[in-house]
């Protein structure tokens, strides 16, 4: 009988005679591989997913004029669009204006970019029924045709300001600065939970014209995606590009983000290590049990003249082939679990990673190898006569 045929027969018989045993080993290996795969896949992608959560905070990098200047040229903003097209950006110009004889902050900005930096802002617009608010992105998309018809003239009132003046969306509001007055249609009342609640937001060009500061900005807010290091890289690029502008990272945002990511990473690492450790132990005990229980088989093989090498090889090959199937199956199930979790928690897909597959398969095979090789090594040193006589 050729070694290959012998091998197939031994494995086949093992399954036929003791299906429970083999199934238990297979299940232990597969469960181990599933856990390893789910944890590893999540571990590698979690920091990126968590970073995205911090984008609800808004900007993490501010461009402001240097020194005692109050504004800087808009030029920088236009160049920014070319040099960092992927970074959400928002220009601001502030002025203390008046409406109905009272002082109020006028904030000039770009309506269509607000949503990218402030996804959490809620707007109550004219067409909407009472007490229903929508996110700013939805409003802009809905209002776009009307806005372009009106020559892009709009006004958003912060909810404190709207309550103070008793305004409702749809009215026309007169705002003044110096001697200039502008009548703007009130598009909606915006609720932000920040300073903007007491401001009036209006188109940047309108405010620039009113305040005779054409082509000037007070600040640019940037939401640089990625980690603190990436923000620092962008900051250095910007600082080198425009010496007259100061680029300031918002420390509370960046530092909290970095802290939480670090902790999440540490926690996941610790948990993955614990789970892997215990999975290894339990797989080892199950698989070693399988070998130890077949001491008699080993005894018979030895007494029939099987060499130590051939016997070890037979058993190791048997568990390794079992482990290979279990690892592939487990990796698939584990990836599915991780994918489900990512969809459920972060509502975004987990990319398929090729680098975790060899890790999972490698660990499973190594564990299976150790779990078989050690007991086989121990058993084959025994005298077959002792083993076969029974215990």
């Amino acid at each position: 009988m050729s070694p290959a045929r012998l091998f197939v027969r031994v494995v086949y018989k093992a399954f036929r005679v003791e299906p429970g045993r083999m199934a238990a080993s297979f299940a232990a290996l597969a469960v181990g591989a599933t856990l390893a795969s789910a944890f590893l896949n999540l571990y590698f992608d979690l920091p990126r997913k968590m970073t995205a959560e911090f984008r609800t905070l808004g900007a993490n990098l501010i461009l402001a004029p240097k020194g005692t200047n109050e504004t800087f040229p808009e030029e920088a903003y236009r160049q920014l669009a070319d040099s960092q097209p992927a970074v959400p950006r928002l220009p601001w110009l502030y002025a203390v204006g008046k409406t109905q004889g009272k002082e109020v902050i006028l904030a000039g900005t770009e309506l269509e970019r607000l949503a990218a930096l402030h996804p959490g802002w809620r707007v109550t617009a004219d067409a909407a029924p009472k007490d229903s608010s929508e996110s700013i992105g939805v409003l802009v998309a809905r209002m776009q045709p009307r806005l372009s018809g009106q020559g892009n003239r709009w006004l958003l009132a912060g909810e404190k300001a709207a309550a103070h003046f008793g305004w409702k969306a749809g009215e026309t509001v007169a705002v003044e600065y110096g001697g200039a007055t502008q009548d703007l249609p009130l598009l909606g009342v915006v609720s932000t939970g920040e300073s903007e609640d007491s401001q009036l937001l209006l188109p940047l060009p309108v405010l620039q014209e009113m305040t005779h500061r054409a082509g000037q900005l007070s600040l640019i807010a940037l939401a640089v995606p990625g980690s603190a290091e990436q923000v620092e890289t962008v900051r250095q690029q910007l600082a080198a590009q425009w010496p007259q502008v100061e680029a300031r990272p918002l420390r509370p945002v960046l530092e909290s983000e970095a802290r939480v990511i670090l902790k999440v990473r540490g926690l996941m690492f610790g948990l993955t290590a614990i789970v892997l450790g215990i999975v290894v132990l339990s797989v080892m005990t199950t698989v070693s049990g399988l070998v130890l229980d077949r001491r008699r088989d080993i005894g018979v093989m030895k007494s029939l003249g099987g060499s130590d090498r051939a016997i070890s090889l037979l058993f190791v090959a048997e568990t390794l082939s079992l482990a290979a199937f279990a690892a592939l199956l487990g990796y698939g199930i584990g990836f599915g679990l991780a994918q489900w979790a990512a969809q459920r928690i972060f509502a975004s897909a987990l990319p398929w990673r090729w680098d975790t597959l060899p890790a999972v398969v490698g660990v499973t095979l190594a564990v299976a190898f150790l779990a078989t090789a050690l007991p086989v090594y121990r058993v084959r040193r025994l005298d077959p006569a002792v083993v076969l006589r029974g215990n």
Partner: protein
Amino acid sequence: MFWRLVRESLWRPRNRRRAAWAALAVALGTAVAAAMLNVSLDVGDKVGRELRSLGANIVLTPAADSLPVEIGGIDYRPVSEGAYISEASLGKLKEIYWRNNIIAFAPFLYVPVRMASGLIPGLPEREQKTTLVGTWFNHTVVTSTGDRHQTGIRPLNPTWKLEGEWIDDSSAETASGSCLIGRALAEAMGLRVGDFVVVMLHAEGVEESSGVALQVRGIVTTGGAEDQQMFASLAVAQSLAGVADQVRRVQVSALIKPEDEFSRRDPKTMTPAEYDRWYCSPYISSILHQITAVLPGTAARAIRPVAETQGNVLGKMTFLMGMLAVLALAAAALSISSLASLAVAERRQEIALMKAIGAQDWLVSGLFLAEAAAQGVVGGALGFAAGQALARLLGRVVFGSDVAVNWMLLPIMLLVALAVSFAGTWLPLRRASHYEPAAVLRGE
């Protein structure tokens, strides 16, 4: 007879090892499940404390106020305009139901000032309009019950970077005559730590007010509007503005529970039982409600971007950890019960022998289940202890603080360990009861 059999199968040298292995398997599974559950129960609190570094998530302003003239959280109104909150009443923040969740708070008084540097003879005097922010740095608040709490902008904003030293405002003497300067302002004025500046109230109608000399103790970097401001103790700002005991706003940092369907409901529509549940959960809405109740005349609002991010991150972390714990629990259960059923299958001959000499099925089952119970309890208890140790280790390494021991988990883990061992033993026993003793004993 029954107990002797049980004892022997657990304790006779021949069997001891097998029983110990089985208990160890249960212990390993329980340990990982207990560690995961423990961490997942505590992760909300731990991550909540980390997220504190985002700064305040609640702001209090006077309820009947004129419209704030505000950019980036800084109020530019002259001191004569608008309403104020009384500084003396702020201790009440530490008397609400969720007082322990109020981690830090600080009052703010914004005074428009003209600041001049140039106390050094020979250097040209430079002047700049700015806002002097009066606040607590590390102030001791005494509640009406006599409890003392340290609070102020230092605990409120742990991410602020300071060059120099913080102002000690525990007593009026150490705090007067000192200030902190924002980075951008310091650069514009060419100021360094240790320099002196003179600040004068800047208000319409006030021509020439007497200045206050302050020494720059530190330079603050935050990246926000604070970089353009200067900070002094609240007493300094109040005497400069002439508004004793008054503050413009209060920022509060509170540990919150993520929002869910329940918390978004209007408390007015809740039944009394639901209202109690809402009131006794640290949702941001119930904390806001409780603050307004103890400080009438103030409006408490959530700083939404901060509160929302905290809620999001917390909710996601808790769900993730919970899911991983359930996963680990399921895997542990599977491996324990497969080991237990192996142990039964291995002892088919024993079962057959017992049946052959007249044992009833229930007696055989009882014997094995009693063994499984012993292994489940011993393994479960060991696993619980090991799980706690693992969770503590993890808590200390990752968060630098211990994970709280949750004794509620002990009975749960024991029950789970027992149930899993029983389930693993029960199925093969059912099969074993159909064995024909003769066939089993003859074969091998």
